[in-house]
């Protein structure tokens, strides 16, 4: 069982946030506080790389939608990258993929902001 971990890097105006471990109601406040800090710095173009994510629960999904909504109000967005198939099937089934953009490659994710 991996501990939840968040690593960040900037790529031009886009913030790449790499997640690993489980994003559940216990670990989510850590991500929430990092996202709030980014918003306070005026960074509204966010890509969450989920390649090493083992699990995501509704607390995490709901809040990501809330952050995406806030980001869009500032002409940014929050999108997902490299979502593992097991997680993708679940979030697709629930309808979250209709609201959150999901990309296959980092270049594609970053380019989606340049196209805005």
């Amino acid at each position: 069982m991996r501990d939840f971990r968040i690593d960040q890097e900037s790529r031009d105006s886009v913030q790449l946030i790499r997640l690993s471990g489980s994003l559940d109601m216990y670990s989510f406040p850590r991500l929430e506080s990092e996202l709030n800090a980014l918003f306070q710095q005026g960074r509204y173009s966010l890509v969450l790389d989920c390649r090493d994510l083992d699990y995501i629960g509704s607390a995490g999904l709901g809040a990501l939608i809330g952050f995406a909504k806030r980001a869009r109000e500032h002409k940014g967005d929050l999108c997902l990258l490299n979502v593992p198939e097991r997680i993708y099937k679940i979030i697709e089934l629930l309808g979250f993929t209709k609201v959150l953009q999901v990309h296959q490659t980092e270049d594609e994710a970053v380019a989606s902001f340049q196209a805005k």
Partner: protein
Amino acid sequence: MELPENIHREESADKLLIQTPGHGSYLAYIRAIVGDLARKIGFDEGEAAKIEMAVDEACSNVVRHAYSPDKEWCWQQRDPEIRLDIRVEGNLLIIEINDHGQRFDFANYRPARMEDHLREMKPGGYGILIMRNFMDEVQYSSNDQTGNTLRMVKYLKKS
């Protein structure tokens, strides 16, 4: 998987009992145990993932709402605890999640439809919708002697 000492686990042929402290740091263990069991009794990976998520939502609600520190509980003199009684009866997987925290008015809770929630990009309120989506039966009961129990059933479809 090695469990922390304060998780109690008892397993027989068709029953599993798990008792953990009512704290979010134990949710990952609960998910792992329930997911393993679901796969062992014949659910495929997709169905096991749904069961795991439904149980996680239920236990997260216990931690976040039933044991919320700013609420009064009937059983506040006890340590917060989550107890899961899981058994297989024929083609049914029955999961009962028990706590002794704040009661929830489940019968009168009318969540919006998932589609509406998503369209409005609501940041919360998905837990019970997910349980109802992913399990075949979801019922809640509460009484002064036994506490609050959420009963969820999943049908094992024979292929």
